[in-house]
């Protein structure tokens, strides 16, 4: 045989030698590996490109640019970091070669040592097992592997699915009540207190030329708002930094535009109640006015298209804001009484303004803004009017379900939270509806109702666990699961502005311009009071560190003001 017997003297010495070499080389390799791993860590930690300490020092210097001490600190830190960084670079460079040599010697000597020891194989038992069994085992193995692969393949779509961060997304405040029309701000760093009279935490306030009850919509450095009187309808773009009007554009969509809609309460609903909607993808904004004018403008104020939908017959004035979904702009144009059969939900092509579809609605005039509810089975448009909450498929306008639960004239828009639709109205009740039904689901899908201190104008607010609603000063908090009222408080003021949530605070703005901030807990906790300084009927808008509120005459930008 080719193998030497282990008792051979020379061979024993050879084995000893190779084994010794292997041990030494192995220890050396291990040592180099440890040194390199350490250097690796130091190298990563001392990377001056993005070292947190250095960045912090630099930030300090930016505030206090004259401090020689900080400068010295930076220089010292920088020098240390760089020295470590480049030192470890070199160590890694040379270490790699040492490692190769060490590992090579180790592998070589170990292989020799092993081969010197190797005894010739001695097959023990006669070959067991037969081909049939082996084949069966093999087939079973393949079957198991196939099943495992199938499972893996089926799991891939789930694993690679991009999780939507919509709920916490820093979505832009691109329309009425911000992301998902929820009234919940993704930005939590807004001031707790401010004073519009004294100018505390007010970045700027500017006069909005024409009156309106539309709330601001915010896109980066632009704030859009509308204003109108009997004759003129205007869109304003404010520079968020300076507060000045970047452009204003007056809208006259068609020959019918000049007709003054009847019955509009100029000081209440105003001629400009619908909030503008921003389409960030195509860099456009959509606006609507009480006279039935709908327009699409680009961000520079150029009109892309405009249509006149006919003068709405609405005895307070049309107030529902347009809603954007994919390529469609929805307008809930409810008018007259239910018998007039004038009401409809209209979808316009957002690119051209051409009508995509129109679904007649069995209701009279209404004021709530519809919402898009991202229900698991697909998006739905939820509309509220007396007496129905109706859900439509946004793709074709087909009715999905309806609930008969509302009564009387009402302004609150529905909300969608934790898989439930909450709809309410002053003279009926608040209903929690499961949105997975078909047809009339009044009897089957209403989880709970509650009928005290219902809102007249303000839309409800919900974080999925609790539901808040603001009646005429009476603010109540319900459990979203059961509809049980947890607490309520009378603020002894009148409210039109819908409650808005930013982090763990709820902002409530009274019609007189008093601002109450309460906590979001299961117990009532009033956090602070602030003053806007003028009447306010609109809902606030939020941006990074900022809050925009439209008062009766001014637009306020509220931001923490550094000293």
């Amino acid at each position, binding site marked *: 045989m080719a193998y030497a017997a282990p008792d051979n003297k020379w061979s024993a010495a050879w084995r000893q030698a190779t084994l010794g070499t292997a041990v030494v080389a192995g220890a050396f390799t291990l040592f180099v590996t440890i040194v390199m791993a350490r250097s*690796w860590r130091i*190298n990563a930690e001392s*990377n*001056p*490109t*993005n*070292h947190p300490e250095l960045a912090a020092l*630099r930030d300090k*210097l*930016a505030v206090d*640019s004259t401090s020689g001490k*900080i*400068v010295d600190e*930076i*220089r010292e830190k*920088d*020098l240390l970091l*760089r020295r470590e*960084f*480049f030192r470890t*670079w070199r160590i*890694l*460079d040379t270490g790699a070669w040492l490692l190769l040599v060490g590992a090579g010697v180790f592998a070589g000597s170990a292989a020799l040592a092993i081969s010197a020891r190797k005894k010739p194989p001695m097959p023990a038992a006669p070959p067991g097992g037969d081909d049939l069994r082996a084949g069966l085992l093999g087939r079973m193995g393949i079957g198991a592997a196939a099943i495992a692969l199938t499972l893996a393949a089926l799991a891939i779509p789930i694993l690679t699915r991009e999780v939507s961060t919509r709920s916490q997304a820093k979505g832009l405040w691109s329309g009425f009540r911000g992301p998902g029309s929820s009234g919940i701000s993704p930005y939590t760093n807004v001031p707790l207190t401010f004073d519009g009279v004294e100018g505390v935490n007010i970045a700027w306030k500017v006069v909005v030329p024409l009156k309106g009850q539309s709330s601001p919509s915010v896109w980066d450095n632009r704030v859009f708002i509308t204003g109108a009187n009997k004759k003129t309808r205007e869109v304003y773009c404010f520079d968020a930094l300076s507060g000045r009007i970047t452009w204003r554009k007056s809208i006259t969509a068609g020959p019918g535009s000049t007709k003054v809609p009847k019955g509009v309460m100029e000081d209440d609903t105003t001629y400009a109640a619908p909030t503008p909607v921003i389409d960030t993808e195509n860099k456009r904004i959509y606006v609507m006015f009480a006279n039935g004018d709908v327009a699409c403008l680009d961000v520079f104020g150029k009109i892309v298209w405009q249509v006149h939908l006919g003068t709405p017959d609405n005895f307070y004035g049309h107030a529902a804001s347009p809603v954007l979904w994919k390529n469609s702009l929805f307008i809930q144009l409810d008018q007259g009484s239910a018998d007039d059969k004038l009401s409809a939900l209209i979808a316009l092509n957002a690119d051209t303004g051409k009508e995509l579809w129109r679904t007649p609605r069995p209701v009279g005039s209404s004021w709530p803004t519809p919402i898009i509810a991202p229900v698991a089975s697909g998006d739905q448009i939820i509309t509220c009017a007396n007496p129905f909450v109706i859900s439509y498929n946004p793709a074709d306008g087909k009715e999905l379900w309806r609930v008969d639960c509302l009564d009387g004239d009402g302004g609150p828009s529905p909300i969608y939270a934790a898989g439930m639709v909450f709809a309410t109205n002053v003279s009926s009740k608040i209903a929690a509806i499961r949105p997975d039904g078909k047809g009339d689901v009044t009897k089957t899908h209403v989880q709970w109702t509650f009928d005290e201190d219902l809102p007249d104008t303000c839309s409800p607010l919900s974080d999925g666990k609790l539901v808040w609603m603001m009646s005429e000063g009476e603010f109540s908090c319900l459990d979203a699961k059961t509809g049980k009222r947890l607490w309520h408080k009378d603020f002894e003021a009148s409210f039109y502005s819908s409650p808005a949530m930013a982090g763990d605070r709820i902002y409530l703005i009274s019609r007189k311009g008093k601002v109450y901030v309460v906590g979001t807990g299961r117990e009532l906790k009033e956090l602070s009071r602030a003053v806007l300084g003028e009447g306010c009927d609109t809902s606030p808008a939020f941006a990074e560190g900022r809050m925009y509120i439209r008062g009766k005459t001014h637009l306020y930008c509220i931001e923490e003001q550094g000293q």
Partner: protein
Amino acid sequence: MDKTQDKLTRRNFLRTTTRGVCAAGLGALALTAARGKGVSMRRMVWQIDPTKCTACGNCATHCVLTESAVKCAHDFSKCGRCNFCFGYYKSGSSGAKSHAGVEFQLCPTHAFVRKHVVEDSYEYTIDIDKCTGCGICVKGCKEGNGSLFLQVDQDRCMNCNECTIATACPAQAFVRRPADDPYWLQQRPEAKS
């Protein structure tokens, strides 16, 4: 010796035929692969298209080498020799501080060196040994004349079949170029003078 191997059995005949077919198939495969425009006898190497590069910094962190093969390069024919260089100073540093130290400098490793030439003109050079390819200076220079750009140092590049920086490049600026013309200058090299 395996006797069956030499015998002209049916199986062996089949095998020989199939082998021939396979060899021919492989040849055809090779020809198909070679028919493309991209084929060349030259080796292809990786390079950055500076017109697409956004200086995101991934070059420094995503190379398979600890010290990235990507380094900053300076097209001197485009440099304005500014006093206040956007690639040298942090943009917040107010005014020209010829005495300013690291606290106002962009380059984290001091690879971007400034030398006074005449009155208000400075020469900026890159110490290749210190450059990590982070591209911060390139980003800064985009505000100015754009004379700084990132390039793959061909002597360092491993020329991997799949470049890991290329896969991580957000601007898809990594492309292959023939090895005998590996560098990409937006402007003509300084031929005159």
